[in-house]
């Protein structure tokens, strides 16, 4: 039997997964997942390595199409829309990938400004405003100006992660997805990301989903946690309910 979880106090539609099924060849990953997260709410998804957290986030963001079922973002069936059509309808997705997903042949500035140039007519931005927005995003992600024109290959892992964050922030998304946001980062970078996550959590315009197994992050965010296990999504109350092996040293609130 599939679980139907609804903790959405918000009346605005946020993320809705309706009997979603997905698998890779013969390996099922999601088995009839139902999920409803209201606009402006925040949730953490946990689960063992390889259980399909990243896949769930990709599907919820409309980056992968479910094999069965439907995915709605803000009431729109996202997997039937072109990414640009989705953007035009006001569904702006920020996605920070586990490995960054940074465009390797573009400088940091070009990575951040790309979507702004691509959607300049939709956002009504001119060149000066695009530059300004990029600088704001770099400041938020605490990336020094000396790194702005660097290629990602010449940046550290932590800086690339912050660059991914800056790129996502620049479009001012209303749906934000983080896939293992602080794995492999030093304390300073992890703290930057945790602080930004807390700001996003408190922003009523942003629906935030974080895929992580870090109890410290889950406790810091203090939001509903869901556990993905055997293709089903179940409700978990707090980070302390994670298995002891999942607790790792990290920045404390």
């Amino acid at each position, binding site marked *: 039997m599939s679980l139907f979880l609804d903790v959405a106090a918000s009346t605005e539609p946020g993320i809705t997964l309706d009997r979603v099924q997905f698998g890779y060849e013969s390996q099922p990953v999601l088995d009839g997942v139902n999920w409803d997260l209201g606009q402006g709410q925040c949730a953490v998804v946990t689960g063992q390595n390889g259980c399909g957290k990243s896949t769930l986030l990709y599907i919820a963001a409309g*980056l992968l199409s479910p094999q069965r079922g439907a995915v709605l973002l803000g009431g729109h069936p996202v997997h039937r829309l072109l990414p640009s059509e989705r953007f035009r309808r006001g569904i702006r997705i920020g996605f920070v990938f586990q*490995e960054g997903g940074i465009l*390797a042949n573009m400088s940091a500035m070009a990575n951040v400004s790309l979507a702004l140039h691509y959607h300049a007519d939709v956002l009504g931005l001119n060149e000066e405003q695009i530059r300004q927005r990029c600088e704001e995003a770099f400041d938020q992600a605490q990336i020094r100006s000396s790194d702005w024109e660097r290629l990602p290959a010449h940046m550290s892992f932590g800086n690339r992660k912050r660059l991914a964050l800056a790129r996502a922030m620049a*479009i001012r998304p209303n749906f934000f997805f983080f896939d293992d946001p602080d794995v492999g980062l030093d304390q300073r970078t992890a703290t930057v990301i945790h602080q930004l996550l807390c700001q996003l959590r408190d922003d009523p315009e942003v629906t935030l989903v974080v895929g992580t197994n870090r109890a410290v992050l889950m406790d810091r965010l203090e939001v509903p946690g869901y556990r993905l296990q055997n293709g089903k999504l179940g409700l978990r109350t707090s980070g302390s309910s994670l298995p002891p092996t999942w607790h790792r040293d990290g920045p404390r609130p």
Partner: protein
Amino acid sequence: MSEPEPLAVSWLEQVGARGLHLSKVATGLWITLVSAWRSASAPGDGARDVCRAIAMRQIFYTSFQALGLISVVALFIGATLIVQTELLGGALNRETAGRVLVAVVLRELAPLVTAILVAGRSGTAIATELGVMRVNSEVLALASLGIDPPRFLVWPRMVATIVSVPILTVYFSALAVFGGFVAAFVMDSHGLGDWQSGVAMGLTPADIPLFLTKSLGLGGLIGWLCSYYGLDVGVSPTEVPQKASRAVVQTLLACIIFNAVVTVAFYAIFGGNFR
């Protein structure tokens, strides 16, 4: 512990597996083409500007930066053909040598060899670049930013190869004629007027649609097939060189078959006009 014996596969299963693979490739190619077309016709001035800039960079790389390679190949092919024609036909038959140059080099070799060089140079680059982008989640990242991957990745590359192959074919033809001219002059400086009139008489109005069909079609095939194979890479980096190699081999086969089919079709339709 001994290895388990591989399961015996009947010829019928092999045929079935091959058929399934071919239908998967055909479907993927169709989806690549349709999605590129659909996204390219989607509204968005900003998107149009960004993609136009990418297409211009691709055209520069595919055509301008390939001029040196094309020059060497064209000069030597033109010269070699004239040397062989002169040796077979005799130095007196200059007009025939000029006509052979038109028939063999300008109509057949120029578009095909240009396409082979573009596929080997730019086709590999397209398939490898897109494959690496797939592995690094860059394609998903583009989609997350509201950027249509077919429009941003496939369309500019197809436009670049469609624009570049005709330009390079004209350039190849001009240099092949020049190479042939130099070879003919070096072998025997008499009768160059006959040779030039042979080249001029060999060209007919029917060569224009033939040239356009071949060069535009071959250019489109290169961009299309190499983009498909690049985006067909899964999650493993080891797939990138495999797909790049397959992209070039399949593209070369497709180009050779396409060139032959167009030649036969044009000679069937315009037969007398080519003499």
